[in-house]
């Protein structure tokens, strides 16, 4: 659900290719069941030295961006190398690392709700708030097992040529195909679709959580014929809008600004009723590089200048409020946490997701694929 996240296919193939030793059972399960693809067994982290940290993120541009913003500077300051691994730390993958007994990962770019669940299982180190500075995070976005380092949002992007001057103003318009005719696209993994359906159904943002799943699913089921595709990864969300398959879609804000650029302004997006979500770093329990080094890395990633690099490279909204002022005026418009944009949006409730995500996703999958 992060920026470059949940690109199921990319992730899976990457994972299969890598096949780190500790995830062997995992990758082989996947490979065996899916295609019997032979893979190269490579034991990276098994021999990882203490002077090294492995940070796992969602791949693609994130690998170079994390390295440029955080990795190189950290190595310069501490002498500890930071290796970027883009294989996608889904909750299941982190769980596999932990259950292997000898994790090869140190830091993961994780969904806070997954961190809550994994923390309760004992798979993550508690964040050491003596090293990580809570004042460098927005209030409410530092958890026991994860510290927010950026923000992104699920926003409505739409075809401005098709709708002319009538821009949509919220989720009610997204679900209104009379006023805004045309096909839609929603997220395959559920997050944001439930909120969108409920907001469209008239529930006030303040009383959104706990989500009324029954009501959301009824709305989504009734809307199905208008949905041309449920996108599973960022690239897919971009293409459904760019090639005109969908006239309106709920996409990650980071991609929305790219789509706007790539379409020469034809596809636009709004922040109204956007669903804002933090991205966070967490540390695996018993990580090979050591807990303290990993905590120091998180602390170093709180630097506003470094977060600014991530904003420039990936469109990630800075987690440190001190970075807001550093963003040039002409770019404030695309910053998900800019105060002007922030006030139009609603934050995803991570505690609700930690408790309910699995079951909710099953029900959602059943409905969209029925």
């Amino acid at each position, binding site marked *: 659900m992060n920026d470059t996240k949940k690109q199921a*296919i990319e992730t899976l193939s990457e994972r299969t290719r890598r096949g780190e030793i500790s995830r062997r059972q995992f990758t082989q*399960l996947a490979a*065996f069941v*899916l295609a019997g693809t032979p893979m190269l067994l490579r034991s990276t982290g098994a021999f990882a030295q203490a002077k090294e940290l492995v940070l796992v993120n969602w791949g693609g541009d994130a690998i170079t961006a994390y390295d440029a913003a955080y990795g190189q500077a950290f190595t310069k300051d501490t002498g500890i190398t930071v290796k970027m691994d883009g294989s996608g730390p889904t*909750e299941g993958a982190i769980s596999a690392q932990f259950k292997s007994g000898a994790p090869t990962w140190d830091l993961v770019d994780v969904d806070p709700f997954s961190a809550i669940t994994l923390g309760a299982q004992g798979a993550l180190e508690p964040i050491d708030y003596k090293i990580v500075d809570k004042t460098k995070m927005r209030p409410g976005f530092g958890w026991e097992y994860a510290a927010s380092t950026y923000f992104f949002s699920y926003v409505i992007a739409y075809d401005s040529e098709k709708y002319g001057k009538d821009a949509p103003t919220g989720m009610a318009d997204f679900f209104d195909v009379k006023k805004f005719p045309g096909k839609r696209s929603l997220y395959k993994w559920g997050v944001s679709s439930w909120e969108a359906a409920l907001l469209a159904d008239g529930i006030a943002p303040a009383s959104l959580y706990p989500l009324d799943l029954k009501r959301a699913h009824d709305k989504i089921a009734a809307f199905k014929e208008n949905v041309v595709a449920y996108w*599973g990864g960022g690239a897919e969300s971009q293409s459904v809008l760019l090639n005109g398959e969908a006239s309106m879609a709920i996409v990650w804000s980071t991609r929305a600004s790219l789509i706007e650029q790539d379409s020469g302004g034809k596809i636009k997006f709004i922040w109204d009723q956007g669903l804002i979500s933090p991205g966070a770093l967490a540390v695996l329990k018993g990580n090979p590089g050591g807990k303290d080094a990993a905590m120091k890395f998180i602390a170093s990633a709180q630097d506003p200048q470094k977060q600014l690099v991530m904003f420039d490279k990936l469109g990630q909204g800075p987690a440190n409020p001190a970075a807001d002022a550093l963003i040039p005026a002409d770019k404030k418009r695309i910053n998900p946490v800019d105060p002007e944009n922030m006030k139009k949006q609603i934050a995803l409730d991570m505690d609700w997701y930690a408790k309910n995500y*699995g079951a909710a996703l099953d029900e959602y999958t*059943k409905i*969209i694929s029925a």
Partner: protein
Amino acid sequence: MRGVLSDRMGAALLMAPLLLFLVLAYAWPFLGVVKWSFTLPTPGLGQYEALLTDDLVQSVFIRTLRIAAIVTVVSVAAAYAITVVWVRGSPAQRLIAEFCILVPFWISVLTRAFGWVALLSNRGLINTWLQSIGFISEPLALVRNEFGVIVGMTHFLIPFAVFPLASAMRSLDDRVLLAARGLGSSRMRTFWTVFVPMTRSGIIGSALIVFVFSLGFFVTPAILGGGRSVMIAELIYLRIFQSPDWGLGAAISVVLVLFVGALMALLFRYVRPRQLI
């Protein structure tokens, strides 16, 4: 006698690393998966019970079987026609057939899936063309649904269907066909009553291979299905990485492997392995 024995020993020695690799890389880890299916989240048969009652799992299983069956019929039929040309055509025809079989075979499944999206989407080649000649006014929904999945999978699997068929057709004794013709049977009749029945083992082998492959497809349905045609492999992915619910994911995997294993056993009853290549 001694020669035969040492040949066998030699063969066994050569095979040993492969066998060891298969055991270490596939069989052993898979036992872990089997264990999960009985132990996660709580020990017992709960996950298998859930398989029988979970309507998401069941609907996905049925969809997977249905898609696999359609893909099998279409692929084998198409492959049969191609193989006839490949095996029995003129040298030029053979060359073209070979080209058509091998070139797609070498292109990655991912590339091909995206290729189909480009061809079949609303503003893809096919819809644009049909609209420009005035055949349709609104684009047809050719992709991001079950139709797209079937097209993509069939295209990927045709080469796999060709090889067993080619093997069966090559081992067919031409004199039988000549005899049929000599006894006054027409070309079509010879084809349907002599040629096709005599390549039956190839048809069965090819159908089983395509069917088994179809059951495990992940990338093609994920891309061309648009979230609407979730197949069993993607459901396992969802259970393991997204939900995550390893116990049920593992149980589905075990059932799938057993099912595929049974089909493979069936395959080898009908077809000798060497006929498959």
